[in-house]
């Protein structure tokens, strides 16, 4: 009963201290602002995707007219042109959980026209046009408020608990009334824990409403809640031990801010600095060298091109190309397919480099909680590096499919009609 009274009495402490109330309001304001930033990005990306899809629809409608004529253009009947003018796009559709964590969403492109000449490392795979200074500072999103502002607000809420009594000399009186000093301390700080749980849960719920999260990915809501509350608990435990040992307000503030600075700034920054020494930024010379490989392809004799194509797609060995035109077309398309293979090969080295970097970052998670939580939240929001890697893989898969289909169909001298044209769209847009 005594402990419950302590817990309830803390409410009075809280509302009588304008600094604490302002700190909580600031956190709430920043988190709401961040949630709206996330929601705004979600709607913006969705709208842009819808706009592109609409444009593709119109372009395709226009191109389809070629097949309604009595005597269709010969080029429209060729698989390469039909696939090209299908305007196949791959999208990294924003997940509704992006409302919580914008993560790395602003560092990559989210739509791409995929054709035989594409690669997942093309220029249009880079971020949307944005102010680099803004990207550098990062957008305030919910995860920012949670990871960086919550510990500071907790600091403001807790820094003088127990130390104020110690400084004013009535800690002994408290000890007389509450022989179990730790229970007294716990009861008081639990009030703030509960307050924060209510605020954070409310904010997460509010965020879910902004992007209709419950309709599409309700599990993200619970995961977000789980990680947010575990993060809150992590700081509470840390601060609790500081308060238990603390003798004065100044000492507590100094240690608490020191721990915050260490965990939020110094450790991640040191890891980042060390990583860039161990693995400096990749200048992608492997990809650049593909340019020369491609160039050399044009110099190669047809027999060698065909030999390599047979290795790539053994099935075509058994198909005899019927016309000269088909033969020339098939060989030309073969260049793209072989260049694509060069690109894939060189991309492996880049992926390996990224993998090594990511492994290094993961290995630091045990002493680098901010990065751990940041990446977990990004994963929930599907704005993690790996989500964009999956997007790149999907693009590569589409390029491979396009090349493969084009070669097989050209070899088979397939004449594209409206049905086939639509079929291509269905296959490559999957």
């Amino acid at each position, binding site marked *: 009963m005594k402990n419950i009274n302590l817990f309830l009495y803390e409410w009075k402490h809280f509302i009588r201290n304008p600094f604490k109330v302002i700190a909580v309001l600031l956190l709430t304001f920043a988190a709401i602002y961040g949630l709206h930033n996330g929601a705004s990005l979600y709607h913006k990306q969705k709208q842009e995707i819808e706009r592109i899809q609409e444009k593709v629809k119109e372009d395709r409608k226009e191109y389809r007219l070629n097949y309604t004529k009595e005597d269709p253009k010969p080029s429209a009947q060729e698989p390469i042109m039909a696939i090209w003018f299908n305007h196949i796009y791959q999208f990294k559709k924003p997940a509704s959980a992006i409302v919580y964590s914008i993560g790395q969403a602003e560092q990559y492109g989210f739509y791409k026209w995929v054709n035989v000449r594409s690669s997942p490392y093309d220029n249009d795979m880079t971020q949307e046009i944005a102010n*680099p200074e803004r990207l550098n500072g990062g957008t305030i999103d919910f995860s920012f408020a949670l990871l960086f502002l919550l510990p500071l607000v907790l600091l403001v809420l807790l820094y003088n608990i127990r130390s104020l009594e110690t400084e004013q000399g009535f800690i002994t009186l408290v000890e007389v009334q509450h022989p179990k000093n730790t229970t007294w301390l716990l009861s008081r700080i639990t009030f703030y824990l509960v307050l924060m749980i209510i605020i954070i849960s409310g904010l997460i719920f509010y965020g879910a409403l902004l992007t209709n999260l419950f309709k599409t990915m309700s599990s993200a809501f619970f995961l977000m809640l789980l990680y947010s509350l575990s993060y809150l608990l992590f700081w509470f435990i840390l601060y609790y031990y500081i308060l238990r040992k603390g003798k004065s307000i100044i000492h507590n503030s100094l240690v608490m801010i020191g721990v915050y600075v260490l965990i939020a700034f110094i450790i991640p920054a040191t890891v*980042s600095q060390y990583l860039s020494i161990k693995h400096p930024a990749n200048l992608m010379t492997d990809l650049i060298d593909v340019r020369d490989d491609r160039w050399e392809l044009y110099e190669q004799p047809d027999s060698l091109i065909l030999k390599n194509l047979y290795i790539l797609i053994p099935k075509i060995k058994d198909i005899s190309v019927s016309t000269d035109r088909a033969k020339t077309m098939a060989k030309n398309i073969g260049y793209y397919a072989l260049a694509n293979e060069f690109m894939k090969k060189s991309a492996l080295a880049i992926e390996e480099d990224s993998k090594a970097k990511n492994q290094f970052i993961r290995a630091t998670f045990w002493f680098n909680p901010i990065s751990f939580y940041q990446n977990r939240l990004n994963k929930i929001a599907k704005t993690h590096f790996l989500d964009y890697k999956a997007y790149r893989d999907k693009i590569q898969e589409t390029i491979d499919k396009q090349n493969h289909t084009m070669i097989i169909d050209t070899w088979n001298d397939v004449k594209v009609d409206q049905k086939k044209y639509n079929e291509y769209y269905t296959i490559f847009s999957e």
Partner: protein
Amino acid sequence: MWQIIKNEWHLLIRSRALLTVSLGFVLTFLVSVFLGDLQSQKQNKKYKTAKEHLREKWESIEEMNPHGAAHYGTYVFKPSNLLSGLDEGVNSITGNVLRVEGHVQNEIVHSEASQMQSISKFGKLKSSLLLQYIVPLLLIFLAFQSINSEKQSGRLKLMLMQGQNPANIVFAKTLSIWLYGIALLILSILVYTLLNLNHIYSDLISRMLFFFISYGLYYYALCGLTIYFSIRWKHTSLALTSMLGIWIIWTIFFPNILMSSVEKWHKLPSRATFNTAMKNDRSKGLDGHNPADERRKHLEEQVLKQYKVDSLSQLPINFDGILMQEDETYGNKVWDKHFGELRNVLKQQKQSYQLGGVLNPFISLQNASMGFAGNDNLHHQEFLVQVETFRRGFIKSLNDKHAYGGSKTGDWGWKANKSFYKSIEDFQYQPTAISSVFSHYIVDLVFLLFWGFIVSILLILGTKKMQIL
């Protein structure tokens, strides 16, 4: 006043806790400067190797059609600035590789940040991170009880009875703590200079000087404000929480919120809209690969008239090369228009953001720090402009060779030799001189000065209302 400052320093040195913290700071600074320098060295080495590799590829061209060479193109890598060891600015966000080719002005790609998962929201362990976020906290902790503790111990009364001017005491206290920050600042700049002694030149010295002045002014504003709270608030803890609150708002809340808002006030187009607009504008002009184009006809007539011949086959030169160059020239106009608009929006965003310095000196400090270190968006744009200027010259040489090198119109099989390709100079980055961009940072320095002035006024007013007991 000097005596009080000396006395304050004696007290600071005697504090074992502060000595330990200072030692920790000095070590962290040394580590940050050393690691920053090491990273710059490694990155520069990688940059040099990549640049040489690319040049080697270019020079190894035996024979190639000049237009083919324009498509083959080359690549430019963004070099790291010498001062990026102090403040990296936007470098990890902007890309590192720029493809230089005919018909198109490409964007810089492959940023460091995009090559891995998230690590640090506040960047790497550079001096700027410590100087902008951590040192101010230390200064706040040193200053917040400076006057109050004197009041409580009765020393303030004693000093006043000895004839000290209250304003002198307050300013001496402010300066003594400010000097502590300045000492850390000097240390980081000095160590950095020593590590790079062979590469330092006058422009860098000027940059470091302004870098130093910006931080010096900010620290003064911060120390003064904390001392002011220490005078005004009865309880030391109140002074501390007020300053911590201000630190949070200044460094974490305000810059982020303002920057996001600025991007909403001055909107940038989406990539798709931007590219479509350029494509539309470009298609109105000459298309080098489209002989049916009207502009082509006009150009053809012009050239035929100039050479006094009736058909392209009679021309002593290769009309295709002229056509390509005309197409480039038109393309350049389109790119200048669109990229120019983009740069204007970015400029407006920057200017609006800089105005935030009137409410928050941290914004001015951050701008000045990365600006004077040569790593803000303005310097990044300067780099891009240099690359584009190079690209235009590069493509023009190829088109001119195609037109006037000895081939005839339609002769796509004609090839220029190795010596020609070798004669085309490589891209040489010219670091932006501080004198050419200084005007952009005046506003930041003015706001920092303004804050120094405001804080001095506050200190004078605070001194007048100061309660001795």
